[in-house]
């Protein structure tokens, strides 16, 4: 499986980009110990115009490169944590619905449908506005709007795995239902969940940036979306302020998508699965 993933050029490019972003995020405090908010020079300095400020300065004379580095931390964190939270909601719900069926399924799916009926982005906006924009509320809002597809996927996978004969075998071995779900069924749904999760991180990063663009970012956390939101009014005079974070988002999201596709090809080889029969 790893071999199949490694031979996928796109996926490896994705991994390379993502590793670079992670490295930058981790090293940010070492390279820029004064943080992203320090006003270091005249505002609106274009890139490469002053030594030590390769990406120029922003509206308050802060170092764009430092902001970008710290922004990587926040964007990745929001993307990762919100995805984990969404999985924590979606996986158990979908698993229980798919495994127990009947009214449990009916109830869980009504609940899921309900959340899918409410317009996602609008709900996220309202949630963030109501709980006030902090990293926690943004992360939670993103998780709340993104778990339903997880629940549906897990449910479908569990329903298909549940019908496999090894589950019957486990039942005959006297294993309890919850134990069968956890030890037999769920491990076999991991591949599609991993694929979906990698794509969800990408979507979450986009969502966070969209919220920030609308002014619903955490003012104490420098994120890429926040940078673009702050720079959108000066996009005409200071293109670099929104250009670099924009590129950072595009690259990161692209990387995650490439990885997701690579994982999908490696973990869910439909063709080979079919070819066997």
């Amino acid at each position, binding site marked *: 499986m790893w071999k199949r993933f490694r031979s996928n050029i796109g996926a490896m490019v994705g991994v390379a980009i993502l590793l670079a972003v992670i490295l930058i995020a981790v090293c940010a405090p070492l390279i820029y110990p004064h943080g992203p908010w320090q006003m270091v020079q005249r505002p609106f300095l274009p890139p490469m115009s002053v030594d030590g400020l390769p990406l120029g300065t922003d509206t308050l004379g802060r170092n764009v490169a430092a902001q970008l580095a710290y922004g990587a931390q926040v964007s990745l964190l929001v993307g990762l944590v919100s995805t984990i939270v969404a999985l924590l909601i979606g996986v158990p719900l979908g698993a229980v619905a798919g495994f127990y069926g009947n009214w449990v399924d009916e109830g869980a799916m009504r609940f899921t449908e309900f959340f899918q009926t409410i317009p996602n982005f609008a709900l996220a906006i309202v949630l963030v506005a109501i709980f006030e924009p902090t990293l926690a509320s943004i992360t939670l809002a993103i998780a709340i709007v993104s778990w339903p597809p997880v629940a549906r996927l897990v449910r479908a996978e569990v329903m298909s795995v549940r019908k496999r*004969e090894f589950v*019957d*075998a*486990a039942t*005959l*071995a006297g294993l309890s239902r919850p134990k069968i779900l956890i030890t037999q069924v769920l491990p076999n749904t991991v591949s599609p969940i991993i694929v979906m999760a990698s794509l969800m991180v990408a979507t979450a990063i986009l969502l966070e940036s969209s919220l920030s663009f609308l002014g619903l970012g955490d003012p104490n956390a420098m994120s890429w979306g926040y940078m673009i939101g702050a720079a959108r009014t000066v996009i005409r005079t200071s293109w670099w302020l929104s250009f670099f974070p924009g590129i950072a988002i595009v690259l990161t999201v692209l990387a995650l998508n490439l990885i997701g596709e690579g994982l999908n090809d490696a973990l869910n080889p439909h063709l080979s699965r079919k070819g*066997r029969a």
Partner: protein
Amino acid sequence: MKKPALSIENLSIGLPQGADRDFAVENLSFAIEKGEILCVVGESGSGKSMTANALMGLLPPGVDVRGGKARFEGQDVLALPETDKQAMRGERIAMIFQEPMTALNPLMRIGDQIAEVFAAHNRLTTPERRNRALELIREVGLPDPEKIIRAYPFQLSGGQRQRAMIAMALALEPKLLIADEPTTALDVTTQAQILKLILNLREKHGMAVMFITHDFGVVAEIADQVIVMQEGKMVERGPAQQVLVTPEHPYTQRLLDAIPTGKLPQARPLGTVPALEIKSLRKTYRTGGGLFKPVREVHAIDNVSLSVARGEVLGLVGESGSGKSTLGRTAVRLVTPDSGQVLVGGVDIAALSEEELRKERHKVQMVFQDPYASLNPRQKIISAITGGPITRGVPRAKAEERARELLEVVGLGADAATRYPHEFSGGQRQRIGIARALAMDPELIVADEAVSALDVSIQAQVLDLLRDLRSRLDLSILFITHDLRVAAQLCDRIAVMQKGKLVEIGTVHEIFQSPKQAYTRQLLAAVPGADWQREEAATA
């Protein structure tokens, strides 16, 4: 000397890099005369389907013809440009496939799918096409053509779909019909009808038929000529009678030996202590329902009573939808019956609560049909086998020791324990499944189509193992199968089911030699190669 309809010379088909061998087909040569049926026989992976696909120009990506010729109507069809191949397909060479369920476009009406053949080759006007479609439907023996023409595939049964496929193949009166395991997915009675239809049509249209099958029974029913293939190479060729009766190549002999013949085993004395007693069992499935949907009821088990004595193997035979699998699953309480009793060692497991049941589970175990689905791909063999005993309270070390023993017993060797399922072949997995069932020291094993998915030679080996275990361990087995021949190999008694009802039950000899019910007789008659085997049995 007649000129052959098709002659293949030195055909070689290459497999992509990384496959388990270089060639799917190597140096294959044969010919089919006009109006002749040639059966290509082989187990899975023998290259028989690839040969057919190569002729049609339908090889999957990565697989290609590396050499050889296929002369058909004066041309080498392998060397034709794609447009010519396309023109040839459907018009002069037609093909039907194994899976009637998936081979038809689910979104297109049957009539349109037939008419499309004419459209593809620019024949006839639209109303003419319709009329021809009606004629064809009539010709392949489908009822109510006017209705069928408007029907979608899902509204047809498997046999009907296969007939529709044949109608399509016949549309332009091809000179050669390639049939790739066309009856494998069908019930025996349906299979018998389709085989008869193909024979009739050959008679009427005089076309050559290349018939691919793994089943020597079918060969006996239909073939004029036979070639036998093994791992891409032809190992034997000759007239059907000759190959069946006096096979020359050891592989052919092995295959023929592996076939469950109609030869009935010696009857064994049976015990009287019941391992399993089923009393007035009923199970009805309701689909639909809810606010706006009408309820549909299917009586999967309709008042069935039977018993399996300790040390006995009871065969449960029936066609798809007969309720035999539901009965098997009820016996192990994977399905809870609506009413009736399932007594195992005197305990009615149908009446137990979930908790009580878990303690009694070990008494009945099951061996499953699909060797690929019955083992958790993410679990090592050892934990698959020891999971049950450990849950029952057996110390881990002891359970593992026993598991290794059992792996030896089923012929795999103890070192199999630490490996994952994907490292094993289908037959090996079935052995693991048996070891897993044995690990629970059950009073009864339900084997649900346990050998159906295996190639004949593997099938024979697993049957041997079961027979061996039966005598060594004094096992009680409820052996569910659709194949009467297989049942005859192993079972002491046979129960025949149809549409949820128990039609007949008796010893193997009673069922085979003096069946009382019409349905049983019908089933026996439909077994492919029945005549040949009876002959053989007589001559033997």
